[in-house]
Structures are given as structure tokens and as C-alpha cells.
């Protein structure tokens, strides 16, 4: 409740909206109670939460419904809800609406890849994508490369969830330009509560909270998408206003302010953004965590058919960015500058009764808590399994693993908090941009391994390194035409051409070429290939098939050093 004292320090232009704030606080408290209660929900009887399977994967038993809410809450984050309409509002279709084809092509890809990853992970008890890479290629450097990439790419993603909460708090009137600590206090309180229930309940907390969050967000978007066009006199008016704004020529650059409908020159940027983001999303550890928490091999496939409902909602939400153009929404930040990320929260506050705006804003804020929890769990699992266990304590038992992971999840979250409070917001956005480029470079190691052992482990490693270096340099060289800052965007020409593409895709192509060529070279050189502990049958295993540990009990090793699985 100390949050209520903050408004005394605010600038008069942004008064506190008492009703909306109360609704947000009530819903936040409700969700926090739910988060702590989740520890008892379907908990394992004999073990409690004292293993990574229980704490970090929710007991590996989520069925279709829970998975739908969990992955919906996990993939469609608060930052997405804030940033996609913000991009539409500011620069139009190419940087905003690509989210629709992105989240369309995502699901066929998930359908193809993820049940194989589920099967092999179920069979061997893998918890992270790096676990699988380690089991498949027997290469420490490659495992650590995948694990570290996952952790580094996830950190700024968590930080951006905080940016989403911050947008909501700013619009509600909390915070002041003068007193930084008071501004951040509600954010800190929200995060401490989040950290506490994630610590006690593990993945069950975000799974349960996701149900509430998703229902709220569907409610908010459906109402807005019906009510606002009626109020504004139809979609004609909304698109008309958007076209006028985006086609207007900016005198500073001599170019149009944005893109209303992409011309031939932006085709390649548009579709590479979509496919690159789609390929990258399920390489993120938090997505894999959601997949591995499911009950059976085909749960994720069934979900691939029903998750697109969220994409439809995201598409409509994106169009709210255009509605805000028509409505003349003014997203003015505390320091008086225009901050596009405030567009959607401000739109709700301007055009709806305070209590309903409160529901919508709470949905966004709670929408930040779900992915932040899952991401911190996923990053903590990576640290525990692939750095702590593989490098420091190879004999760690499940109980120790759970303990380390719980603590690591706290460290990860406070790291993200400090990131957002101490550093400029644009630092988190730049890092997130780089994270998307980096995480796609783990695709060959993870995905190729699901189908074939043809690639050589060192070729994959070098390909990964080349992709990361190229992607980082290319992203650095993109200069914002207005501010002249580096990391000005994620689109660059393929070297030697004029074709504009998503940098991650160019880096990925380079990565793949290097991996193929070097695999041929290393095979010809007969470089040692590493031990593969997986078998063909593992990739089709389902929930009732025996796990590897059980198979080995049934068919004991004839050799001596058998216990190293």
C-alpha cells in the first residue's frame, strides 16, 4: 500500500487515477495469493518441490488446457502487448504488423520440431535445450555455448517485462521525474512479490496466474476491438488517420514517417523478420521450458493448433496502435518526451471507464509477471544443469539442483531489476534486439540434432561463433537516422547487395553454411565425434514408454563405468 503515497511527488499533468489504480492493486494482490497457493496445486506427494522436474517443470504433467494458458502467457508477453501497438503507432506495418505472419508461421514450425524434442527430453530427463545438445553431441563447449546464449538472451527479455509494468505504472500516475527511487518503488515491490512466489512455487505459479492474466487480456482486447471502432466511426476512419500519419514526409530525413502498406523494397525485410523471429522463439529457454512441462508427446502439437487464437488477439491489439493515431492519444512520459510504449495503456485510460481501464492495465502488468517468472526459471535451470552441474558439481543430486535453481532464479530477477532501474531503457531494448539475433544461432545445434547426427560438433560450434560475431557487428552498424545512435534497428542489407533483411536471418544463413562446410572438412579430417547417448527410438517416445533410467535397470550394463548418464 505504500505505493499510494507516491503520487504526492508527481507532476500535476499526470494525476493518479484512483479507481484504476485500486483495480490494478486488487488484481495484483489476488494474483500474488494465487502464486503462493500454486505450490500446493498438483504437487508431487513424496518429493514436494525438491527436484527440477517438480520445481522447474511443474511436475512435467501439464495437459492441453494448462499448457495453452501457460504458453500463451509465456510467448505473448506484456512487452509484446506494449511494443507491437507502439511500433504500429510510430512507424507502421513493417516494424509492427510483421508480428502477425510471425505468429502464424511459428506454429507449423513448433508442430514439426517440438514433439521430437519433448520425446528425447522425456526419455533422458533433459530439462534444458543445452541438456539435449550435451547428450546428443557429447561436447562440453557446445553445451556451454547453447546454455550461455540462452541465459544472456533471456536476461534482457526479463528486463523488458519490467519496462511493460513501468509503462502501466507511468500511465496510472505513479512516479515522478524528480525522485527516481519513488518512481521505481512500486516496480520493486511487484518484483519482490513475484520473486517470492516463484521461489516457493516454481513453474506452477506462472501456470496458474497465466489463466487469470489471459482471461483478463482477452476481455480487454475483445471489448476494445468492438467498442473503439464504433466510437471512432468505423475502421475506415482509423486506417485513414494511420495512412495520413505514416505517409507524411518527415522533413528531417526526407522520408515517409512510416509504412502503411509495404512496398516492394520492404518485402524481404517483412518476411525475414517474420520467419527469423518464428525460428528463434522456440530456441529461447522459456519456450522450451513450457514445452517440456507438458504431459505427453502430442500435447504441444495439439496446442500448435489452438495457440493461434492468441495471434489473432495480437493482430487486433496491433491495430489498436492505429486506433490511437485516430484518437490522438498523447503518450507523454514523465520527462515530457514522447514514449510510444505508453500508447496502449494511455488509450485504455482515455476512452474507457476507470474501472475497465484498470482491468486492462492490470492485464498488461500481470502479463509481465507470467513470462518474467518462466524466463527466470528457465535461465536458472540452464545455469543449474549446464554450468553448476556440468562444470562445478557433477554429482549434484536432484534436491541440490532444485535448491541452486531457486537461488539462481532470484539472482536472475534482481539482475534484470537492476538492469532496468540503473541503466537506460534503450539499453534493455538494444540487448533484447541482440538477444533475438544470438538465440537464433543456437538453432542448428538444437534442431539439426533432433533429426540427424550428420553435423560435426566443432562445426556447429564454429558456425555458432561466426553467426554471433556477424550478427553483433551488423546490428552495431545500424545507425538510427534521427538520433545517430548505434543498434538503431534489426534490419540491414545483405553484404554486397541492397536487399534489406532481418540481421538474425543473415547471420543464421552464414552460421549454417559454415557448419555444413566445416562438417565436411572435419569428417574428412576424422576429428573425434563425441558420444551420443540418444537412440533413434528416443525421438518417438511417449509418456508411457520407459525412461532411459528404467531401461537401464531392466537391461543392466555389462561394462564397468555405467553410472555416468
Amino acid at each position, binding site marked *: 500500500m505504500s505505493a499510494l503515497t507516491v503520487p504526492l511527488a508527481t507532476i500535476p499533468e499526470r494525476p493518479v487515477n484512483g479507481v484504476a489504480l485500486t483495480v490494478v492493486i486488487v488484481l495484483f494482490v489476488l494474483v500474488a495469493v494465487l502464486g503462493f497457493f500454486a505450490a500446493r496445486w498438483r504437487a508431487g506427494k513424496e518429493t514436494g518441490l525438491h527436484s527440477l522436474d517438480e520445481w522447474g517443470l511443474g511436475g512435467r504433467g501439464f495437459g492441453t488446457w494448462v499448457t495453452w494458458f501457460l504458453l500463451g502467457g509465456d510467448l505473448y508477453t506484456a512487452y509484446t502487448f506494449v511494443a507491437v501497438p507502439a511500433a504500429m503507432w510510430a512507424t507502421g*506495418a513493417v516494424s509492427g*504488423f510483421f508480428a*502477425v*505472419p510471425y*505468429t*502464424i*508461421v511459428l*506454429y*507449423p*514450425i513448433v*508442430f*514439426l520440431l517440438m514433439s521430437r524434442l519433448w*520425446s528425447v527430453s522425456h526419455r533422458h530427463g533433459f530439462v534444458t535445450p543445452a541438456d539435449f545438445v550435451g547428450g546428443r553431441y557429447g561436447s562440453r563447449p557446445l553445451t556451454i555455448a547453447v546454455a550461455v546464449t540462452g541465459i544472456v538472451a533471456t536476461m534482457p527479455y526479463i528486463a523488458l517485462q519490467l519496462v511493460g509494468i513501468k509503462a502501466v505504472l507511468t500511465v496510472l500516475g505513479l512516479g515522478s521525474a524528480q525522485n527516481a527511487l519513488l518512481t521505481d518503488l512500486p516496480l520493486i515491490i511487484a518484483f519482490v512479490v513475484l520473486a517470492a512466489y516463484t521461489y516457493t512455487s516454481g513453474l506452477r505459479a506462472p501456470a496458474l496466474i497465466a489463466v487469470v492474466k489471459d482471461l483478463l487480456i482477452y476481455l480487454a482486447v475483445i471489448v476494445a476491438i468492438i467498442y473503439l471502432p464504433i466510437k471512432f466511426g*468505423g*475502421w*475506415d*476512419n*482509423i*486506417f485513414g488517420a494511420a495512412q495520413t500519419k505514416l505517409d507524411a514526409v518527415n522533413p528531417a530525413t526526407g522520408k515517409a514517417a512510416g509504412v*502503411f*502498406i*509495404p*512496398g516492394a523494397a520492404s*518485402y524481404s525485410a517483412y*518476411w525475414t523478420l*517474420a*520467419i527469423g523471429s518464428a525460428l528463434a522463439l522456440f530456441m529461447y529457454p522459456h519456450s522450451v521450458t513450457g514445452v517440456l512441462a507438458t504431459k505427453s*508427446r*502430442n500435447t504441444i*502439437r*495439439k496446442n*500448435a*493448433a*489452438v495457440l*493461434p*487464437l492468441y*495471434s*489473432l488477439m495480437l*493482430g*487486433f491489439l496491433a*491495430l489498436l496502435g492505429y486506433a490511437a493515431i485516430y484518437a490522438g492519444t498523447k503518450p507523454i512520459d514523465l520527462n515530457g518526451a514522447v514514449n510510444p510504449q505508453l500508447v496502449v495503456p494511455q488509450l485504455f485510460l482515455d476512452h474507457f471507464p476507470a474501472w475497465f481501464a484498470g482491468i486492462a492495465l492490470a492485464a498488461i502488468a500481470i502479463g509481465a509477471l507470467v513470462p518474467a517468472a518462466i524466463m527466470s526459471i528457465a535461465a536458472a535451470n540452464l545455469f543449474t544443469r549446464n554450468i553448476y552441474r556440468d562444470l562445478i558439481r557433477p554429482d549434484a543430486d536432484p534436491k541440490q539442483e532444485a535448491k541452486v535453481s531457486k537461488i539462481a532464479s532470484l539472482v536472475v530477477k534482481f539482475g534484470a531489476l537492476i538492469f532496468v532501474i540503473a541503466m537506460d531503457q534503450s539499453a534493455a531494448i538494444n540487448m533484447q534486439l541482440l538477444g533475438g539475433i544470438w538465440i537464433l544461432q543456437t538453432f542448428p545445434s538444437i534442431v539439426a540434432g533432433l533429426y540427424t547426427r550428420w553435423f560435426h560438433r566443432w562445426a556447429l560450434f564454429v558456425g555458432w561463433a561466426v553467426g554471433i560475431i556477424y550478427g553483433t557487428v551488423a546490428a552495431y552498424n545500424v545507425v538510427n537516422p534521427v538520433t545517430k545512435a548505434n543498434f538503431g534497428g534489426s534490419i540491414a542489407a545483405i553484404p554486397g547487395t541492397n536487399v534489406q533483411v532481418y540481421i538474425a536471418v543473415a547471420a543464421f544463413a552464414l552460421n549454417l553454411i559454415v557448419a555444413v562446410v566445416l562438417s565436411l572438412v572435419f569428417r574428412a579430417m576424422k576429428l573425434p565425434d563425441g*558420444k*551420443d*547417448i540418444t*537412440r*533413434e*527410438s*528416443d525421438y*518417438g*517416445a*511417449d509418456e508411457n*514408454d520407459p525412461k*532411459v533410467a528404467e*531401461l*537401464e535397470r531392466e*537391461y543392466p*550394463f*555389462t*561394462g564397468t563405468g*555405467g553410472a555416468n548418464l
Partner: protein
Amino acid sequence: MSTPDLPTRGPARPGPYIISGILLAIAIVVPLFVPAYSIDKPRLAGMPFFYWYQMLWVPVTAVMIGIAYRLVSKEDRRRRDEVKGARTPEEES
């Protein structure tokens, strides 16, 4: 490596996988083919073609994935039953 590789599934019949593969390929390629839809008209309820066409593909691909799910999970069950039927007597010995 020391444990025998007991198959979890019998051999696949190609049919369901080919049909699913085609459906999924359509669901990936068509939404990415920008020249087909980067136009303004015809509008739908005031929405330019570019926007409503892409939104329309969301439910269309969902149905295609749903069909692929039906086909593949049915074949999956059949292959699994095949192995189970063949393995049970051996396991007793």
C-alpha cells in the same frame, strides 16, 4: 549405447506425414509471400486487404495444423500399438 534400442514405434506409413507436410508447408510459405497481399483494395469493413488477409490466415493455418494433428497423432497411435503388440510376448521371456 549399452542398452538395446527397443523401437518405440513401428514403421511409418508415408501418407499421413506427406499430407501433413504439405499442409504445414502451405501454412509457412503462403503467409510469407508478401507480394500477394501488399495491396490496399479490396477493403473489408474499412480494413485494407493487407491487414485483413493476414488476420484471415491465422484461423486458416490453425485449421490446417488441426488436421495435421489428427492425421499424425492417429498414425502415431497405430505405430505404437504395432510395437506393443509385437513386444509383449517377448518381454515375458
